[in-house]
């Protein structure tokens, strides 16, 4: 592939913290903006999922039902449903439509707008049972909301039929806990990362292994996800590295370093609303932002008082949310100046 002629990226404008909130009583494990951008969902080891305003971080609803900590959450593409993965060995599907309907359209992001009558109503409509150990990650099929993929400490990747709650496929994917699962944009394949040091690609329809992208015994693969166009995968390993890989050829194209990642499975994100950035939390209590092409660190966001376990980028605004572990327990909102 020849070098493409590209317009120079817009000059970097720094992010600054605009909000902090503590919606949970224990560590935050995951933060996710909804695809429609009107909600921010956060999950915690206290077993709850909180729905926050993406502008004010005000708590709009709390989803209760899990018997143990929640490790991951995933939105359906239409933002109507939320899937949570928990240490109680189940996944739950939550119906968020009443919350969305309760947001006052006139108030923009919903801050200060009318709230649903009962923020603590039971919105769980489906419990997916079958994992034999902690469920560690979950991802909705982005092409449709009819299936969810999950990975857990039982070393399996499972695919669930959302409508009936049936486990459609149970793949003995790895020999160690599965740390992440992610669908490609058309829902045809899944990438999974594991503590066994491998990163594999699976056919979502047949459950067969299509490719092993990383096959090292050490270090563990802590996170993996597809790029927005589905051509690359971003892989994090417990050796302080983030790598961008062309999974068809198996070649590593970019490596991002400078952060600290030795212990926890930090969740990273692509930022595409302004320039093209890679965003990740770090065990030195900061959020790191790299230039996608140049691989240089553009900014280090300080403010958290414990490991930043998860970051999420707003789908349309230059906004980043981050969550911290037990000594911090905050969800912080970072806005790009401009």
């Amino acid at each position, binding site marked *: 592939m020849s070098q493409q002629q590209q317009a120079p990226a817009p000059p970097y404008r720094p992010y600054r913290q605009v909000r902090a909130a503590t919606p949970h009583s224990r560590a935050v494990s995951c933060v996710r903006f909804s695809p429609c951008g009107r909600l921010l969902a956060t999950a915690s080891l206290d077993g709850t999922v909180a729905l926050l305003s993406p502008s004010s971080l005000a708590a709009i609803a709390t989803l209760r039902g899990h018997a143990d900590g929640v490790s991951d959450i995933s939105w359906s593409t239409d933002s109507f449903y939320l899937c949570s993965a928990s240490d109680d060995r189940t996944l739950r599907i939550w119906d968020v439509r009443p919350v969305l309907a309760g947001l006052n359209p006139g108030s923009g992001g919903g801050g200060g707008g009318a709230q649903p009558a009962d923020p603590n109503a039971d919105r769980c409509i489906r419990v997916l049972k079958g994992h034999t150990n902690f469920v560690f990650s979950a991802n909705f099929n982005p092409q449709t909301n009819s299936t969810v993929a999950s990975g857990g400490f039982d070393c399996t990747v499972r695919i669930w039929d959302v409508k009936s709650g049936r486990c459609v496929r149970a793949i003995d994917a790895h020999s160690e806990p599965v740390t992440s699962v992610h669908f490609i944009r058309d829902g045809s394949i899944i990438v999974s990362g594991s503590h066994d040091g491998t990163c594999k690609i699976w056919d979502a329809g047949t459950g067969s292994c299509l490719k092993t992208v990383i096959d090292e015994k050490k270090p563990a693969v802590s996170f993996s996800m597809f790029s927005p166009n589905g051509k690359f995968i971003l892989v994090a390993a417990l050796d302080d590295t983030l790598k961008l890989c062309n999974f068809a050829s198996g*070649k590593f194209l970019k490596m991002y370093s400078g952060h600290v990642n030795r212990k926890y499975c930090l969740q990273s994100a692509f930022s*595409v609303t302004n320039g093209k950035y890679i965003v990740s939390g770090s065990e030195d209590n900061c959020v790191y932002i790299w230039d996608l092409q140049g691989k240089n660190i553009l900014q280090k966001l300080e403010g958290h008082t414990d490991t930043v376990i998860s970051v999420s980028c707003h789908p349309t605004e230059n906004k980043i949310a981050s969550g911290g*572990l037990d000594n911090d327990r905050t969800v912080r909102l970072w806005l790009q100046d401009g």
Partner: protein
Amino acid sequence: MNVPIVDPLQGDFPETIEEFLQYGSMKCIAFNRRGTLLAAGCANGTCVIWDFETRGIARELHDKDCTAPITSVAWSKYGHHLLASATDKSLTLWHVVNEKKIARITLQQTPLSVRLHPGGPSTPSICLACPLSSAPILVDLNTGSTTVLPAFLSDNGNLPAPNTRNKFSDGSPPFTPTAATFDKYGDLIYVGNSKGEILIIDSKSIKVHAVIPIPGGTVVKDIVFSRDGRYLLTNSNDRVIRVYDNLLPVKGSGEEIEKISSNNISYESHYEKLKANGASCLAISCELLDAIAKIPWKAPCFSGDSEWIVGASASKGEHRLCIWNRSGRLVKILEGPKEALIDIAWHPVDPTIVSVSVAGLAYIWAKEHVENWSAFAPDFVELEENEEYVEREDEFDLNAYVEKAEEQLVNEDEYVDIETYDKNSTFSDLDDSSSTTMELIYLAAIPIPDTPDEQPDKCLGSSSKLEDSNHSDSPSSLDAVQNGQAIPPASSPMEVDNSTAEEPAEAVNSKRRRRLSAKGLELQQAEKGKKPTTKNKSNGKSPGSNGKQLEPANGNSSAVDDEATEDDEI
């Protein structure tokens, strides 16, 4: 998306029954354009739409007026509508997402098959219906008006009754059976008649442009185009399936045939001219038949990529599919349960066939799953033949690894585009028009809330509708279920998946078995042997993992015990 890493050497036609679908008594099936949804018409007048990805029911289209058995279902081009024909002579057009009946028309004859016009507006208005014992008719779903197509040419080449509307009110005698289909874009209609001729008719002017006599000269029972419009097949009463190359351009076929007709001027009769036109439109490619048993065929069709032709045996009590390649070589015979087969459909994209038995079940045939072992290691390559390996002198020096690691990142300055999507070339023929109409690919799944006592294994089949159906058909239903249960052992030895073992109650809605190859078993045993030695575990996502570190160990012990049990069973 999968194309770069899918093994190109694998064959692409089905080999075994993967599972079956059950909902009342299904009579006919049709895939939508993308193969993500499967519509089935049932004996009680209901149309069921299956989500073919999850093999669950996505929609049930039912109305108090629609109670007669359905004879045919057809999707609109963009998948938003479904047309059903029934034995009460009715045509019903459904809106799939809204589950609403849009139009209902009663014909004078029972339609055996229907097709919606491939072009036209977003809400389809024109359809082609083939009645039981009459000429095919074009129906305007908005007005209910019908246009009878010419099915024969008289001996002197004139049409018996051109362009007659509502012909039967004249008291004219009905014709014998015909088959008809639109071509790729609906410009032309191809009609197969009982004299063994193919007529090519302009769908707007209803003018016969060409005629192609079929060798054998017997009744044409089926006439089917391939999905890309380049091939046509006919199934005749002489028990031969004939495959033709379509010599007209797929797009603009109407104009081209007008041109051909204008150029052919010096013929002694109109019939001879039409035959000459026909010779420029279709060329026979091959004939498919059972040379020994001479069995009759039913519901033949092409594979989605037009590479294969499948025909079903029309013999009673036989569920048998034959697959040929396009040069006429028989490549596969699929044997199923001892139930007559009434309809089949080949998936538009996958090597998957769905066949409907007279018992009302739909069987899904798919390729036998073969593990691609080279996918499990990045540098692993399967060799077709032995090669002599020449070792490099420094191959096992430590420095080599350092160089290899550096080599991996040599292209780090390459520009990486993470946003541009690839066009889906399989469906590129929609691109010129899809900017105005969004195709319906999936039906949004609305999760069914758990019952109060949280039984996730509750079967959809427990609905009262299905119970009524089972009650009325209990003897055949029981036989069907038994046969269904018996299929996997008869077809091939199979192992029960973990998911099946963990969810034993899963029964009625669908069944799934998958064969483990010998290598798979060996690998599983190897993995079982390997797992107990694994001791170190990295930390999880949170400080709580310190506490959790104990439980995973327990989980491991439990897993080891389970594996021991599995060993005993094996």
